[in-house]
Every structure is written in C-alpha cells, then in structure tokens.
C-alpha cells in the first residue's frame, strides 16, 4: 500500500511538472542539435586534415600509458619464495632454534624414533641408487 501511494503521489508530481520537464528536454534537445552540428563540422575538418576524428584525447592516451605501466610493473614483480621444504613427511616441522632456550624435545623418545626411521629411509634410497 505504501509503495502504491508513493507511486501515486509521484505520478501526480510528474503530471504537474510535465510541462517544465518537457520544456527542459526541448531546450536541451536544441542545445544538443547545436553540439551535434559543431561536432560534425569539427570531425570533418579533423578527418580531412588526416587525423582521427573519434580518436582518444591526450588525457586518455596518458591514462592508458600509466595504467599499462602499472600493470607491467605488477607482472614483473619478483614472486615471493615459498619454502616447500617444511611440511613433508621427513621434515614435519622446522629445526628447533636454540635462541628460544633449551630444546624441550631433546630427550623425547618419539623424536628419536623419527630420526631412526628417517635414517633408514636415507639408507634405502642409497641402496636403490
């Protein structure tokens, strides 16, 4: 109901303002006719002097050049190196950094077992080679 009333009231306003709107449109239409004639004459002159009448303006050319340079700079940027060493089966986590203090896992049995299994894998690889 609210939407209907809104449309109804705006319809009344448009009907009342329609002569003003028509006058505004008519004046703009006359202005656009003059603009069109001016552009037609200008384009003919540019065309017969060897130029491109509907080519880009110098600001457009400058803008395209800047945007192209930016794009090329982004493409030529050096890619950040991703260290894929960690996350493999033989190295599930990075080596312990002694700056943080004594290694809490130094005397851990599970870490010893992992070291032994990794040593066995290395021996197997050497045999296969």
């Amino acid at each position, binding site marked *: 109901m609210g939407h*209907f009333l*809104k*449309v*109804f*009231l*705006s*319809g*009344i306003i*448009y*009907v009342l303002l*329609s002569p003003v709107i028509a006058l505004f*449109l008519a004046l*703009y*239409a006359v202005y*656009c006719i003059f*603009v*069109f004639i*001016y*552009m*037609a004459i200008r*384009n003919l002159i540019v065309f017969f002097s060897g130029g491109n009448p*509907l080519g880009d*303006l110098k*600001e*457009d050319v*400058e*803008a*395209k050049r*800047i*945007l192209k340079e*930016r794009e090329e700079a982004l493409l030529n940027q050096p890619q950040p190196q991703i260290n894929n060493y960690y996350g493999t089966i033989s190295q599930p986590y990075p080596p312990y950094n002694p700056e943080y203090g004594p290694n809490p896992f130094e005397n851990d049995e599970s870490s010893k077992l992992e070291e032994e299994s990794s040593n066995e894998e290395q021996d197997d690889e050497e045999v296969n080679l």
Partner: protein
Amino acid sequence: MIIFLKLTENDKRLLIALLLILILLFVIFGYLGLLVKKIMKKQGDKGEDLIHDVVKAGVIKSPKKLVLFGIRKNYRQLFKDAWIPFCIMLVSSLILILYCAFSNNWGVNVFDYEKYGIRTLFFVFDWEHAPRANFFGMELISNWPDVLSAPHWSNDAIASYFFVPGMLVGGIWFLVCVQAYIARTYRIYKKSKTIFNRSLDNFDASDAPVDEIKPE
C-alpha cells in the same frame, strides 16, 4: 451537497469510473517516471565509464578539470549515439524536398487526409461536428463522430509516407540520445564532487598504528 443528492445512480457510476481513470492515469505516470529514472541511472553508468581511466591513472586530480574533460568526452559520445537518427531525419527531409522540387508543389501538407498527407492511411473522424450532450453544465461528446476519410493509398502522398515516419523515428531516437546525454552530464558532475574528497567518515583512530615508546 445538494448537487450530490440530485445525482442519479448512472451519474454516480460515471463519477466513480472517472475517478478510477484519473487514479489509474496518475499511477501510470508514476511508474513511467520510475522507469525513466531507472533508464537514466543506467545511462549515467556510461558517463562514469568515460572518466574512469583518467581518474584511476591520476591524470586529472581536480573536480573542475574533470567536469571539463567529461563534457568533451560527452560531446563525442553524443555524436557517436546521435549520428544515425540524424541521418534518418536528414534523408526523410531530403525525400520531401526532392518531391516538392520535382512536383513543383511547395505547399504540401504532410498531415493531409485527402491526397498529400500521411493521414490518408488512417481513419479520420469529424470531431468538430461530433454529437454532444450536456453533463454537469459541460458539453461532452456522447457518440462516435462521422468518418471523413477511410484508409486509402495515394501516390501523391508518397513523400509524406517517408517523411513522417522517418522524422518520428529519428526524432524519438534523438530525444533518447539527449536523455542519455543529460544522464551522463549529471553523473559526471555528481562524481566530480565526491571522488576527490578525502573523507574521515570510516576512519577509526584505534586502528591507527601505535607509536613506539622510545627510551629516554
């Protein structure tokens, strides 16, 4: 009040019907206005497209220069949009002028219904002498008027058959181009007022980096 008491059932029904027609008319105009607004919003997007690159590249940095640049681009866009309807109107006018020159008849009425005009193809009614009746002190038409002319082909009206539809199609198409020009101009002007403003509306001071406390 006495006037309403004297109304017959038929008069009341007629009044209600007229009121409904009036309401319907206003609602139609309301929806037409909404449609025009929606179309102009979409046409305004082209205006943004015209100035997008120069703003993004930072070639133009002031609102005044942007408006002037936008007007130049808009002139070119108007020419690109309007050259076809202009040509249609020009060709239609040329056909009429050539016909008048060859037939040596410069007083051709393009809306004539007997011999030379486009109305030879339509029914023409005698509205001036239509039967009328008195209704609330006003004389309103009460029945269909007589037919002055039935549709018929006329070779003498061939220029009007090209001129009137050509001018109609070209004229309406050109008006749509003018509407698009107005929409683009308004959008460029509106954007020039806002895109160069450095607003602090969404700034939150607590997100700003905290200065390091330097030892004394």
